[in-house]
């Protein structure tokens, strides 16, 4: 039996794009000499707002359909360091990127495309400032490896909690097959 094909391929890409919203906002503030502000600023704002809007729509759709799953914690790690790494280590070089000539801009966009692909491929679409602003913490839950029929793949629970305890069952909405948000 093949492993299941992951759902929401496109939506996950949009979620990753949404995680880049702070970058597009900063670019909108900085501007570029290559494009007039009347196009560049709305373009950046669109890239910051539209994917985040779609992410919120996905959350709403999960709530409307009651797309719930009960997740049981075997081992949970609070990965707040992930968001710091993402905000500063990953995005920082882009904040300072030179968008004043075509070659630099093209190189920056290409690098951004690589980052987007990696985040999408590695299921890191939970890395979003919006969740942090709403008070959610990122917990990576590792299932029990001895569970004969259970999943062996770690998944992410976004919860407004400081800790998740072992054995605890948490009611969640499904954002994707690997990311769940506490009910």
């Amino acid at each position, binding site marked *: 039996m093949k492993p299941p*094909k992951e759902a929401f391929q496109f939506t996950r890409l949009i979620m990753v794009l949404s995680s880049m919203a702070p970058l597009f906002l900063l670019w909108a503030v900085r501007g570029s000499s290559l494009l007039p502000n009347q196009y560049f600023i709305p373009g950046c704002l669109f890239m910051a707002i539209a994917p985040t809007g779609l992410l919120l729509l996905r959350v709403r759709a999960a709530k409307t359909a009651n*797309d719930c799953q009960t997740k049981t914690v075997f081992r949970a790690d609070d990965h707040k360091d992930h968001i710091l790494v993402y905000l500063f280590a990953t995005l920082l070089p882009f904040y300072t990127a030179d968008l004043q000539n075509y070659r630099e801009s093209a190189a920056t966009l290409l690098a951004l495309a690589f980052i987007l692909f990696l985040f999408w491929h590695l299921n890191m679409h939970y890395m979003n400032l919006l969740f942090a602003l709403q008070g959610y913490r990122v917990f990576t839950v590792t299932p029990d490896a001895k569970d004969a*029929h*259970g999943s062996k793949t770690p998944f992410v629970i976004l919860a407004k909690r400081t800790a998740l305890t072992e054995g605890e069952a948490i009611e969640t909405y499904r954002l994707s097959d690997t990311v769940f948000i506490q009910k």
Partner: protein
Amino acid sequence: MPFNFDSIKSVEFGVCLEGDENETYRIVPSDKGVQTALKEMLEATRAQLFRDDEKLVEFSPAEKYGSTERLYLSLDSEFVTKHREIFATENLVTDTHGLAEPKHLISYFAIFRDSNGDKLMGFRRAAQFKGVIKKNLVTFLDDTLKIVEDDLFKLDTDFDYIIYDDQVLIWRPSGFIFTAGMDEHIAACAAANVDLVSKEVACVDFFGLKDFVLKHKLSMRLIAAIKSRDDLADISKRRLKAECKEAGLKISEIKGMLSPQEGSEYGFLMLLDRRRYTVTLIEKKPETYEAPSRHAAARAE
């Protein structure tokens, strides 16, 4: 805490798929409509199982059951090893394409949780799931009949069996036996079951019976049922001999040990499981019957 049917908080839908080596269990995300239908299935199953306050009877693998019955089994029973595992499993794999290949479907199930977090699972053999997609379905979308071209799946009206509070309640024994893989389990344990029974019933030599049991599926079920009895050690050699004679079974006695002769093995096992009996209402004309399906009757004191 006992499962509270009146405060179901969440419902998940899942499928059991036939794999290359093992069966796999996967969650298929479902919307409110499906969740409501699954709740209705549970309610219908519960209503059938507890109708008229009839007592549930313990499941026996040797019994011949009707299409619907009211049976129970403890979740500790050896006959539900597979379901004990799946009931204990948490965090099943999510597979949105779990219904993409209906030919791999063995059963579908629902996981219900009440407000205390207690779990109930309902299982149904996937017969209709497989069948309905082969038929042409029609719809009245705009006042004209149209063939529905999408793959459609039909939920049933109730579950074959439900698991909660450390017990399995069975409504459709055939569905339970099929999905539990009981015949495979009983066959795998047949030799060990004979050995265990032979330790308990000291007056019977099971050496010759073992070969017979290993060749006959019904005998395997019988020996599994006999093994689960808790009164084997109390069997009286004198009464067993008398009952065999009465039931027309040929037995030998070598070094104080009884054993059925060729041709009487199956009848002997039926007798040990209280499924072969003789009635003599006409003088010198005993009538012997076999009871593939039987239940204990109350005796007037």
